[in-house]
């Protein structure tokens, strides 16, 4: 047997394992990790001294906008943004137009993403047809098409009967329902977090209770049905406490938090800049602290971006009619790393291992850095600071809330299925 020379070797990288960080060389060939050790050589050598090398990141919450809103983002531009953010897989949210509520639309997204080939795009599907909260989607057929996460994200499933049935029905299949917790009746016209700031600005508020009421209801439905459930973008101190108790009770629930809910507060809306309008809204420092505590003690399982591009004309409107949402893929590592005081190992757990498991794609993402594994890898600096500029981002839209801010942590290289798709902070296509 002839031992061929590896195609690509990262030398002297700080390799992130669940057990700790080990400095090593990592060799890749034909899409597979072929060597982890010292003194490795290959056709192409990249000096990774001082950089962390981990499994590629997995985003549980990406809005790619295609089909339907290609002026805001496409699968191609969104994939590029994801790769630049160190992501080798993103879960595409189903609130496209048409919605990802049938196999045809899900297939379209999968195939388009394969053509682009910068990361894996894993479509999620709606819980109810058209996200209208009335009729369940064909869970089994969609499961067969590869869908593992079902969500009406953008809307919460309001009707408790529908949610109960969905949980009961999903229990028979290997899928997870993901809830956007928002009692719509309590957030009508809401622009921002309900608090002093919203009172001063004279806009309708989005009260914490609207999230917590639905979260509480659904935790109890999980207790009743035994079906697993994932909670999207939790934003309040009360929500963290509810999930903490549910987990203590042994319920099969998981939870994510976004980088922006860890870093930004409602006071940023003071200038009525629509870029800071997001759903759920930016909250207070007390909420941020509680979310960080939840991240630290394991109540929160994952950091998910809720990357939500909007084209400029959509945001150049009064704040009450502006669509909520902000970019997140390219800044997630930096913002999370800047906001959180956690180890690199915990960071990778939040950005890669746990989300891969929740998304049901742990057979190919969030894998150990070991010989024989699929080469889905991110190489990044946890110390490099950089100034975010909306004009320098790969996303088709410019609605980043971090424009002009300095964050710490940047992805240098991304390897997807063995291909170097991001080289020295630049996407190869």
């Amino acid at each position, binding site marked *: 047997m002839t031992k061929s020379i590896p195609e690509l070797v990262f030398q002297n990288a700080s390799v992130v394992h669940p057990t700790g960080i080990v400095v090593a060389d990592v060799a890749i060939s034909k899409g597979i990790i072929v060597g982890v050790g010292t003194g490795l050589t290959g056709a192409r050598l990249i000096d990774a001294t001082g950089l962390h090398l981990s499994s590629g990141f997995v985003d549980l919450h990406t809005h790619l906008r295609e089909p339907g809103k290609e002026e805001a983002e496409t699968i191609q531009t969104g994939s590029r943004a994801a790769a630049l953010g160190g992501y080798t897989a993103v879960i595409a949210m189903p609130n496209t137009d048409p919605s990802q509520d049938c196999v045809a639309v899900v297939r379209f997204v999968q195939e388009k993403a394969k053509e682009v080939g910068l990361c894996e795009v894993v479509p999620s599907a709606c819980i109810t047809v058209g996200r209208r909260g009335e009729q369940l989607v064909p869970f089994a057929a969609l499961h067969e098409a590869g869908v593992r996460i079902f969500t009406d994200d953008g809307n919460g499933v309001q009707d408790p009967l529908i949610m109960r049935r969905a949980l009961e029905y999903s229990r028979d299949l290997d899928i997870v329902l993901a809830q956007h917790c928002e009692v719509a009746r309590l957030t009508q016209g809401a622009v921002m977090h309900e608090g*002093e700031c919203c*009172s001063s*600005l*004279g*806009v309708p508020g989005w009260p914490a209770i609207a999230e917590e009421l639905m979260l509480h209801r659904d935790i109890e439905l999980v207790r009743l049905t035994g079906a697993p459930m994932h909670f999207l973008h939790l934003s309040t101190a009360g929500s963290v406490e509810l999930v903490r108790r549910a987990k203590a009770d042994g319920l099969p629930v998981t939870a994510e938090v976004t980088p922006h809910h860890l870093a930004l507060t409602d006071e940023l809306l003071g200038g*009525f800049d629509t870029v800071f309008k997001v759903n759920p809204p930016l909250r207070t420092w007390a909420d941020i602290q509680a979310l960080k505590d939840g991240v630290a003690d394991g109540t929160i399982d994952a950091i998910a971006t809720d990357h939500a591009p909007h084209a400029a*004309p959509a945001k150049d*409107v*009064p704040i009450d009619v502006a669509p909520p949402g902000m970019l997140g893929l390219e800044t997630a590592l930096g913002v999370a790393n800047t906001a959180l005081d956690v180890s690199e190992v915990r960071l990778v757990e939040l950005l890669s291992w746990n989300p891969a498991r929740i998304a049901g794609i742990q057979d190919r993402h969030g894998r150990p850095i070991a010989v024989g594994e699929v080469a889905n890898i991110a190489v990044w600096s946890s110390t490099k600071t950089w100034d975010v500029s909306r004009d320098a981002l790969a996303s088709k839209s410019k609605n980043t809330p971090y424009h002009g801010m300095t964050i710490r942590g940047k992805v240098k290289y991304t390897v997807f299925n063995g291909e170097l798709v991001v080289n020295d902070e630049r996407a190869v296509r």
Partner: protein
Amino acid sequence: MKHLLSAQDLTQNDIIALLDMADHMAEINTRPVPKVPALRGKTVVSVFFEDSTRTRLSFETAAKRLSADTMTFSASTSSLNKGESLRDTIETLSAMRVDAFVVRHKSSGVPLQITEWTDASVINAGDGWHQHPTQALTDAFTITRSFGTPHTLEGRTIAIVGDVLHSRVARSNIAVLTKLGAKVVLVGPSTLIPIQAQQWPVEILHSLDEVVAEVDVVYMLRMQRERMETAFVPSLGEYTARFGLTPDRVSRMLAHALVMHPGPMNRGIDMVVDPAQVSGSRILQQVTNGIPVRMAVLFTLLGSGGSTALATGADL
């Protein structure tokens, strides 16, 4: 000062200077020819995305009395529900060499957003529930001149009564009146007091009867009929019983106390008395005073020329 967007941006000195200048403007309004050439060649555009004839006329009269050219852009609310055209509208009007926009919009924050899209001065003529700074300045002018203390409201207590939650007038007045030293008491049902208003420099009460006999000014807010539909109050009748200004409550007011209302009144709901029968009523005076106060604002923004002087190095 380039823009007037929020009463919260004004310092005590700004407020005093504007009110003093309004005295000056009030004198102009008493002349046989109530017009001065101060803003000749300046163009003021009223951009009213929400209809308000009285505020628009007040601003346009003020601009004309300073010899500014005025234009009006009014848009039906229906075509703006989607809001797409806001930026285009402003950029198009700006291209006509406008010196100031007077902006009214049903959405909070629009005047502030507009400053990003134009070099002209922007004056907030009322945005959503947010701010209506010229109304608050007018009210402060009316109150200080009524009490003969042009620069202070120290020792005065002003009750702002009713639907504070949806009131830009209340938010602006709280800022201006407290900066002049007044004590402000918000009076209304908890459903109509903004969340966490306790953090504001005000006192909050839920009974008009508790304060009506003690305050120097009873400032009534407009109560809209549709508030019933979203359960803010059980019925307008109950609202009026608790918070309406009735003849009985007027009879218990201090002798010198004033009654004010930003208009339009909702007769029989917020105002049960006929203001013409109330000696302390300053409701028409508020309308009259709107013109000199708005003249003072326009002149301060367009005529004081502070920044231009630096740019041209003029030394005369």
